[in-house]
């Protein structure tokens, strides 16, 4: 049996102001996994990541990184982690090259080796031409990539990315995911939190959804998506549709003169929908999913969890 990359056991955190951010979280991430940790703002994701990276003191419980307790053997456990935090946290007056070399130094990696690694990762993240400029002159996307390069300096076995693509344009986001997918393919376990759920759906193999300090879902991405039994389509029509047909198992709504929404079971065939619309003189020019599948499930799970808690 392989040692999990991460094993969180009944982790709790109550802040000094009484806020209970984590209410006994337990989860396991297998080595080599690309794992999504999703949840609404304030759910406890950053607190969990803070505890794992020793920036937040837990109230009780423990976590092990590749079998090493973060409480009993902090130093050894930290050596295995790389963290890309949500907020920018480097000295804006230092140069990216120095930021990376210094970070390696904090892990006890000598300057010669650190310089080679800094060059390697700054080049891979397309920052080498900015390596010797002050970090404050970098764009937002470059600063985010710099934090990834910095997190790679100790070549961690577990890389934790806390909303790394927040506010980053699509092209840079794609290049970041290409890099992270590459290191995951090379064996690094990746834990990702993001609000771009299509990213999580495309990249991650397993997922935990956390809300109000509790895990509300922890499964594989495939099994989670398979539980989605209803889909909503947006249909574009050239003119005002008038009276819509009534079809069993389908809810049709007119959104405006050019748009209809159809909510239906995944097992329901689309042919009968189009036939009914056609018989009512409605021509469909194009169609798309209203939201991505994971987003729909995410909203449902969080809402369902809150209803149960109420």
């Amino acid at each position, binding site marked *: 049996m392989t040692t999990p990359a991460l094993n969180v056991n009944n982790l709790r955190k109550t*802040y000094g102001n009484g806020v209970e951010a984590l209410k006994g979280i337990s989860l396991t991430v297998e080595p080599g996994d690309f794992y999504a940790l999703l949840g609404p703002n304030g759910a406890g994701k950053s607190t969990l990541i*803070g505890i794992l*990276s*020793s*920036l*937040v*003191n837990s109230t009780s419980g423990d976590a092990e990184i590749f079998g090493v307790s973060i409480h009993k053997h*902090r*130093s*050894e456990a*930290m*050596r295995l*982690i790389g*963290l890309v*935090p949500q*907020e*920018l*946290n*480097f*000295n*804006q*007056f*230092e140069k990216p090259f*120095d930021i990376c070399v*210094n*970070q390696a*130094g*904090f*892990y*006890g*990696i*000598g300057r010669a080796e650190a310089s080679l690694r800094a060059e390697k990762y700054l080049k891979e993240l397309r920052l080498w031409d900015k390596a010797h400029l002050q970090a404050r002159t970098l764009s937002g996307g470059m600063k985010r990539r710099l934090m990834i390069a*910095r997190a790679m300096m*100790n070549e961690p076995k577990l890389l934790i990315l806390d909303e790394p693509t927040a506010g980053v344009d699509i092209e840079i986001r794609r290049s970041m995911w290409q890099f992270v997918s590459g290191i995951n393919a090379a064996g690094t376990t990746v834990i990702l939190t993001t609000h771009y759920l299509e990213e999580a759906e495309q990249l991650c193999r397993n997922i935990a959804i956390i809300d109000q300090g509790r895990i509300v879902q922890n499964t594989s991405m495939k099994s989670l998506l398979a539980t989605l039994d209803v889909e909503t389509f947006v249909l574009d029509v050239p003119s005002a549709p008038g009276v819509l047909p009534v079809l069993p198992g389908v809810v049709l709504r007119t959104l405006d003169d050019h748009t209809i929404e159809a909510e239906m079971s995944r097992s329901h065939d689309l042919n009968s929908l189009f036939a009914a619309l056609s018989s009512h003189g409605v021509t469909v020019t194009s169609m798309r999913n209203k939201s991505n599948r994971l987003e729909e499930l995410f909203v449902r799970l969080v809402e369902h969890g809150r209803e149960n808690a109420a």
Partner: protein
Amino acid sequence: MSAATNLVALNTIVRREIARILRIWTQTLIPPAITMTLYFVIFGKLIGSRIGQMHGFTYMQYIVPGLVMMSIITNSYGNISSSFFGAKFGRFVEEMLVSPMSNWVILLGYVTGAVTRGVIVGALVLVIALFFTDLHVAHPIITFLSVVLGATVFSLAGFVNAVFAKKFDDIALVPTFVLTPLTYLGGVFYSVDLLGEPWHTISLANPILYMVNAFRFGVLGVSDVPIVTAFIVMLVFVVGLSFVALRLLSRGVGLRS
């Protein structure tokens, strides 16, 4: 971490601190040199020439060790409090907190950086003083030890201040309301033997008095307090403040939520 990796980590912090001191040299090195030059001109030359001798030395010679030590103390304190608080404020202290580095490495790294600035500024002020008066170091080893210990005491105090500080005002309060008054009343400009009671006894409770006099003994060979007592006081402060600083780091006060 092994001794070798701790040494690399320590070296990294020290290099970063020295790079910071040199990067902002117009804030870290030049102002104390200008201020002390003014002290030498006004107190040493203009007023000092009318005061006469003190403990067998001209007034200028007498105040030089005090002013050098004052520069060392204030710059060591200022360096560590602004640098460490800046790291907290800019959140890049997290670079160190997420690393496997031990707390004592972080503390020693910042203290070494602050002592280095204190020594550089002290040396600059000493060189400037040589334009105004002749000086011969009476006890080089005592001079060196008093500089290192005095700078270490106030580096540690500055570190504790930075750990507790929540805003930049908090790191300015202690130098303004505690450090400056204690320095001025710590025998920089006068011998406490000139004071009557109860002021003489009250002055003996001022730790800066012992640092100034240890350094003055090292340079001139005269002191208002027994030299052994002065070193014991400094060592007690180093040990006590190190304990407090390491305890704060281990509990994560002001650093880990």
